[in-house]
């Protein structure tokens, strides 16, 4: 983490506030603090904020802000972050049916890791994964913290169509596909929850800085939840995040 953030111009409407040059929880927390502090103080002429792994993109109106004046204001907020009371992150509980038709690569992951199906599910469900940022496709969470014991290489030939809700592993990353898209992740299961639905309010369920915890459900439970999701009646379960859950 840098001692002081770097402020980098991104054209005439954007400024990147960079807190570090690595993927680390502490750096990402700083991004989240800056993001929430800026949201709270509601400065005029701040158009949009985009938190990422280690920086915050601030889009502003150049008719309201001269670059140097905005810089002074942002530095002031940065200096006050030490005393900023960060709200507890939320843990989003995502039901997943593992293996079978919903996880076509589950057997491969067992063979590759030499672990039993139960062990893989136990390991995959026993971590709270930090949502470092959302990007790539609408609502796609970049997660950190997967156990290296279940790390597997990507598919040699990516699939052209991956069903929405598929849960996959690629390298030491795990993730969920929010929309049907091509991809090379090894698919181990599927969640009936829609991370992104443009016809729903709100369209997105996850926020950068929060966590995801997967839990196993049966095919029957999957179907039940899928029906509730379809009727837009499903409410995602969440918990307060408690650090160092083992």
């Amino acid at each position: 983490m840098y001692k002081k953030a770097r402020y980098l111009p991104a054209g005439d409407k954007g400024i990147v506030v960079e807190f570090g040059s690595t993927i680390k929880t502490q750096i990402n927390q700083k991004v989240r603090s800056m993001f929430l502090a800026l949201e709270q103080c509601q400065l005029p002429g701040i158009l949009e904020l985009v938190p990422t792994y280690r920086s915050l993109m601030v889009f502003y109106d150049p008719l309201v802000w001269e670059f140097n004046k905005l810089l002074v204001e942002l530095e002031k907020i940065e200096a006050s972050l030490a005393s900023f009371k960060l709200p507890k992150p939320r843990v989003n509980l995502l039901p997943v049916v593992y293996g079978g038709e919903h996880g076509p690569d589950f057997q491969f992951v067992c063979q590759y890791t030499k672990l039993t199906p139960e062990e893989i599910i136990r390991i995959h469900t026993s971590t709270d994964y930090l949502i470092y940022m959302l990007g790539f496709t609408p609502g796609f969470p970049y997660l950190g913290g997967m156990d290296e014991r279940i790390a597997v290489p990507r598919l040699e030939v990516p699939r052209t169509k991956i069903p929405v809700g598929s849960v996959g592993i690629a390298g030491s990353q795990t993730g969920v596909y929010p929309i049907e898209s091509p991809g090379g992740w090894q698919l181990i299961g599927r969640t009936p929850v829609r991370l992104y639905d443009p016809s729903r309010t709100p369209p997105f369920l996850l926020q950068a800085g929060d966590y995801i915890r997967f839990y196993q459900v049966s095919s029957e439970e999957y179907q039940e939840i899928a029906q509730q999701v379809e009727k837009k009646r499903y409410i995602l379960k969440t918990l307060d995040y408690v650090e160092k859950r083992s």
Partner: protein
Amino acid sequence: MGSIKVIKPGFLTTIQDLGRFGYQKFGMPVAGAMDEYALRIANLLVGNTEEEACLEITLVGPTLEFLDECVIALTGGDLRAQINGEDLPLWQACYIQKGDKLHFGGVKSGCRAYLAVAGGLEIPAIMGSKSTYLRGQIGGVEGRALWEGDEISFPALSAETLEVVNRKVPQDYQYDFSSLIIVRVVLGPQEDAFTLNEIKKFLEGKYQVTNNSDRMGYRLDGPRIHHKKSPDIISDGIAKGSVQIPGDGLPIVMMSDRQTTGGYTKIATIITPDFPKIAQAKPGDTIQFQAVSIEEAHEVYRQYETKIRILPDKFIYSPRQSYHCNNPFRKIINIKINGKEYLIEIEEI
């Protein structure tokens, strides 16, 4: 209520407004008009708010039939628009009669034209915007480009709208296309990934827009820019007009449908007032980048916004009115006899 029927869709005709803001933090791209200037001016001409949705027409335009009378304005690139076979003036509010057919003869200059209809387009807003985001399949008409048979509704023509008919924007508000397109950039956010020599090469080089260019990004061909170390960074946010330099050293300009975040170094970002120039560039066109300071960029931005703000006071009401750009109750016909021009006015009694 009136409507426009798509007879032929053209190469790529989509509904766009100024874009979908507030959702980039969830990974939702902004989309919106490639050429914001042309869209804003088209809307102002017909008396809309400047952010209203228009048809964005690309290279080979569609054939459209107006099933009801309306007032339209066409701005941006010159794609040889014709109404019932007669040239339709650009940068001008025009009265359209029921049954009129608009078609395009092909590119004369530029790449994209914007068609505004007085009163706006009846398209549902998704996350606050009518813009079509093709890859995400949302916005516009079913999240896709227009097809044959689509009908787009607009509010019925009002009497006060007729007052805007025939007004046009002054010459200095219209486009003047040149063979070399110079776009100004602010260096960064990752200019420190390059030596001064490489930055010099980037600014002195001439780059061609390749065929591998779309609403998401323009891939350019020209001098390759080398990184001090790696082309990769830890993914961060992407602004419209950011110029990425991937591992092969050839710049990619991030356009309207850009992803919200990315992991390539970005050497520079095109300034907002110059973005329309690249939005109007097509494969084969030549681009050169010119660096300005952020202070200069902001000065240019303020002038650009002022120019648009004062436009309503600068509209010109053309004395040479042609048949198709007319008040429906008053026809003015322009005829030539022995080289002399006469305007004949006919009024319904």
